[in-house]
């Protein structure tokens, strides 16, 4: 069984090729200590020498950096322990208190993060840092107006990278992806040249925005630049693989997804890779990879970590363990009213046959006008199931117009469903 799961070691050929073509080695080469590694090593020396609260806060920051660099959530736990040690020495230490919200966000404890961010803001209302955490917590919880107000305050106090990336997030959510790209370009110009991971992060999100608009060439260029800047970057690999798959380069896409799964496994990557194996006529590998996705969910649950909506979407997309999918999505939705959770809930409800509830959830997901093809696709499928062919056709066409490649299987389903709806749709068109 394990033999069939070949993703553990083989580097992606497409990636190697694209790097060779670019003629550049990554600024951060695999295996060399990264900026976060150096930061951790440096602070650990200081911890030995003088274990003061400031030093533990710096240690927490270094672990946070390592967590984002690797996608390994264990580092959030270590960051939390470092803050605990700072606060054990000085319970009033402001640096540790304001960093608490940041660490809680990493651990997906969004309600607690919001509380911590508000407490830090009360202590230092003119410290822009607190508005960054406030904005992030509010976005994750779906409190978008609060997030916009926090972001406006953030940019007023400190225009720069932290503000520009958060403006981009809100613009993307409210249907302005062109504006999001503008803000991310400003962030890219402001990035520290000595911090390749930060640069790669911005490039990756630029790739996501271009992808969401169906611009494969620009998306691919940004993802490849991210991977040249920071090799094997776990956030960029799935993006590049998705673009390659959309462009029909199935073999190359499989290689990059295999790398992504080896570097930072997620249910979403397992699902996408399984789909590609299936498309390439390898059902055994597809099954094994899907099984790995399910397994990740179980291990995460056993470790007390929630993969929440991502796992729910993976299960719902692949018609596996739909009860769990619904339970996960509903549990998330009980605390988070963000549009992505509403979308996952809607899709899980739809797959479980709860169509009316699915409709209510997808309506909430669409309320900001987010230009997300999968939202439109889910909305269209739900409308079709509810016997509303006009709405269904409009939403499915909108999905395909926004990003004709949005998810290989889903785009195909959307087209097939549109075909089936064609006759009533023409009638409806004449009637209106």
């Amino acid at each position, binding site marked *: 069984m394990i033999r069939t*799961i070949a993703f553990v070691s083989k580097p992606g050929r497409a990636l190697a090729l694209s790097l060779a073509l670019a003629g550049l080695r990554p600024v951060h080469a695999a295996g060399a200590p990264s900026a976060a590694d150096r930061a951790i090593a440096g602070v650990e020396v200081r911890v030995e020498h003088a274990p003061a609260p400031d030093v533990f806060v710096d240690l927490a920051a270094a672990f*946070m950096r390592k967590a984002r660099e690797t996608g390994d959530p264990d580092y959030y736990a270590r960051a939390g322990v470092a803050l605990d040690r700072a606060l054990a020495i000085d319970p009033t230490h402001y640096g540790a208190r304001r960093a608490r919200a940041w660490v809680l966000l990493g651990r997906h404890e969004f309600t607690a993060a919001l509380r911590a961010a508000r407490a830090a803001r009360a202590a230092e209302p003119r410290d*822009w840092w607190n508005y*960054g955490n406030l904005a992030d917590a509010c976005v994750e919880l779906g409190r978008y107006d609060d997030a916009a*107000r926090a972001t406006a305050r953030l940019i007023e106090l400190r225009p*720069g990278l932290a503000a520009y990336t958060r403006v981009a997030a809100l*613009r993307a959510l409210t249907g302005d992806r062109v504006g999001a790209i503008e803000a991310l370009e400003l962030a890219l110009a*402001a990035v520290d040249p000595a911090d390749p991971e930060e640069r790669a992060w911005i490039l990756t999100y630029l790739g996501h925005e271009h992808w969401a608009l169906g611009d494969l060439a620009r998306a691919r260029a940004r993802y490849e630049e991210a991977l040249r800047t920071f090799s094997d970057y776990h956030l960029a690999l799935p993006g590049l693989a998705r673009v390659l798959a959309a462009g029909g380069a199935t073999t190359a896409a499989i290689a990059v997804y295999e790398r992504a799964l080896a570097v930072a496994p997620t249910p979403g990557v397992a699902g996408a890779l399984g789909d590609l194996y299936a498309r390439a006529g390898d059902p055994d590998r597809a099954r094994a990879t899907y099984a790995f996705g399910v397994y990740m969910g179980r*291990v995460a649950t056993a*470790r007390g970590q929630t993969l929440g909506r991502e796992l729910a979407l993976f299960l719902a997309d692949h018609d596996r363990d739909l009860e769990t999918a619904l339970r996960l999505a509903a549990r998330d939705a009980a605390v988070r009213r963000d549009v992505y959770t509403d979308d996952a809930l809607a899709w899980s409800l739809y797959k479980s046959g709860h169509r009316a509830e699915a409709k209510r959830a997808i309506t909430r997901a669409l309320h900001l006008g987010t230009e997300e093809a999968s939202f439109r696709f889910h909305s269209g499928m739900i409308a079709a199931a509810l016997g509303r062919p006009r709405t269904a056709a409009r939403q499915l066409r909108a999905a395909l117009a926004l990003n004709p490649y949005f998810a290989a299987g889903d785009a195909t389903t959307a087209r097939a469903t549109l075909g089936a709806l064609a006759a009533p749709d023409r009638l409806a068109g004449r009637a209106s």
Partner: protein
Amino acid sequence: MHRRSTGRGIAATSLALALATAPAFAASHREAPLMTLDPAADITDVYFFASYDQANLGRTGADRRVTMIMNAVPGQEPGSGPNYFAFDDNVLYEFHVDNNQDGDAEDVRYQVRFQTELRSPDQFVATLGGGPLPPVSHIDGAGSEGLSRVQRYTVTELRNCRDSKRGPKCQDRVQLFGGQLQPTVPSNIGSRTMPRYDLLAAEGTRTDPATGCRTFAGQRAETFAIDLGAVFDTVNLRVERATVIPGARPPLPVQTAAEDANDFVNPFGTNNFSGFNINTIAIECPVARLTSDGSGKGPLGLYASTARQMLTVRTGNPAVNSRKPLLKGTKDFRQVSRMANPLVNELIIPIGKKDLWNATDPADEAQFVPFYKGLAVAQALQAVSNVPVPTGDRDDIVRALLKYSDADPSFSELLRLDPTTAPTPPSSIKRLTVLAHDAAGNSTPDGAGFPNGRRPNDDVTDIVVRLAGGPNFIANYVGDGVGVNEKGITPDFPFLPLPYDGRDRRHVDPGE
């Protein structure tokens, strides 16, 4: 539950994988940058002095030239390709001059903006030797084909400004160079790519005939010298390296008069900035342009700032809900970094206030006065050295950094220069300025340096430590044991040394 017959197989796989890969699975959320540095907008040093090149040593009165310098993009490891180092086109770089001693430095401003031309975005320089392009022999135009990126800038002089909600309103506006873009000097890559970097750098000095001002923007070597590692390690200075002075050293970082008088050797410290480069903006103008009546008389106050653009944020999508308002309808610039006197942000402003301080107009410094008066760093020096420091409110520090005179009612953190003080010739410049002395300890002050303005080679760390520590620290020549960098004094505009080149850079101190 969906437990089908495959459950056991999955469990077996799971176990094998669990053993093989220590599972910790990524749960994604958008973790936007928070702990960020902004090097392009980070002003690390400001210099303000009567130019000490040969021509200016002979000038007097209103004809004398004064140089203003700001350094940004700090800590450049010279070999850091392929992107190397640039200014940010989105940042407004600005010098502000107060010439009527009211503490409000909006009388004359110089605004510098950059524009970048990208020729081949993935590479900084074309490959040479078998490659298609010749070595870089000019910073722009013919001979610059090997540069994949050319950054150019404009300089705008503004006079008689007052602040309004929509930014400064100025009565007079002069575009230097008639508004023409001037090229910056690129990073020093190495001798194959740039065989005569000295000539490239010389091309970066531009003279505007209409105003008599000279400008430079580009890479230079860092001249600020400090044992930063030792200072950050709770002032754990490296006295153990030095010869023993019975009863004094170690443990105290005191120096002998002879050691302290030597402007060419560091007695015991390690300069953390040796071998690093910075990006600099230098503007030199006849002092008559800076003074209110053209007389060339001062004193003048200066600070440098960087500002970044704000962006609009909406609540909700107007297409979905048209009543949702636009929260910030502005693209104004907002100050994100400022600097005048050295080490104020580092030593005086506490950690939680640094960003706020950077965003504040120096004329609003009154809110920070308690930190100057308390001067926590002096207490730290006493704790570490056991050498007593002055007690009570430090009005001497407030006076030195925030006021033109004892009678000055305002508090404004400006670098103040009396332009009637003649510049000291380079061969006579003393790094300890007013505290300079000979090897026997006899005072030999050099009045043309900090705190009368600041020159690139003034040893501000030791001067500030002694002023903060008071008479005992001055008498014992307390310092970090670092005051000199190996490139010495640069006797011509822009008065900072040529940058280290990427291929052959070294990180060593004089005498090491």
